[in-house]
């Protein structure tokens, strides 16, 4: 990682490297030593944060060197530096995946039943109606899942507390 960091530092203008390069490497070594003791996901975020920080920083320094006024990059790198207060429950992601899988299976099953019924000479069913029912059912389930997720995340409490104030 240190080697990659040094390589990315080469993207900076020479004057910035001369002025801050040694210092940045020293600080990075300290931060990296601390990050290696953390969990894998934290280490991945650390690598992403440092890489995007260096790339964005190098671009800004080049723009500055060209005499351009400081600009904020359109890519949302701040998301990597600033963590939102909002916490999405992990269980919701699992639950929504299960629900989605259920909906997909139900639609496939429905389509299979419609196909078998339409093939039968004694029974004529309307596939369009079945498809519409399936879509309405899926929309209902997804809507319920979103409402359930919002309730689990505590969004409704914000409204309640605002009303109380």
């Amino acid at each position, binding site marked *: 990682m240190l080697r990659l960091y040094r390589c990315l530092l080469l993207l900076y203008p020479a004057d*910035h490297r001369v002025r801050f390069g040694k*210092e940045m490497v020293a*600080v990075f070594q300290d*931060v990296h030593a601390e990050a290696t003791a953390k969990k894998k996901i934290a280490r991945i975020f650390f690598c992403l944060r440092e890489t995007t*920080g260096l790339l964005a920083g*190098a671009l800004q320094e080049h723009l500055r060197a060209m005499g351009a006024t400081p600009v904020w990059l359109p890519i949302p790198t701040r998301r990597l*530096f*600033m*963590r939102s*207060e909002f916490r999405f429950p992990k269980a919701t992601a699992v639950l929504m995946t299960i629900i989605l899988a259920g909906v997909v299976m139900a639609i496939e099953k429905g389509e299979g039943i419609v196909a078998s019924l339409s093939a039968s000479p004694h029974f004529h069913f309307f596939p369009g109606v079945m498809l519409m029912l399936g879509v309405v059912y899926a929309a209902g389930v997804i809507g319920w899942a979103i409402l359930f997720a919002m309730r689990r995340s505590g969004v409704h409490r914000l409204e309640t507390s605002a009303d109380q104030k």
Partner: protein
Amino acid sequence: MTSGCPKSNMASYDMSLKVIMEPLPLTEPVLLILLSLAGQPRHGYSILKDVEQMSDGRVVLSTGTLYGALRRLLDDDWIEPFKEQDNSRGRQAYRLTARGRRNLQAEASRLKHLARLANLRMVKEA
């Protein structure tokens, strides 16, 4: 529009802005870096940790972001290098200049004013 906000406070706020004429408002990371240096001179790693601690882990700066901000602050004369006795590991400490401190105070006043205004308005709404 200005009901609920004392006129004298508003006037003094405008006055302070005119006197200072500095680029405010500051972004949250820059504000936190300045606040970190307000207490004592610090080097890069110490600033990173202090910013993280002050924001309860919400703002975690990368070294690229930190040194981009430090360079801007140095160029604008808001901070200056501070000579430490031990800088053997390439650690350079920084401290606020008088100008930086004045601008930080102006930003704090601006935020205080906004918070007071928000409180007044929200109490009125309730």
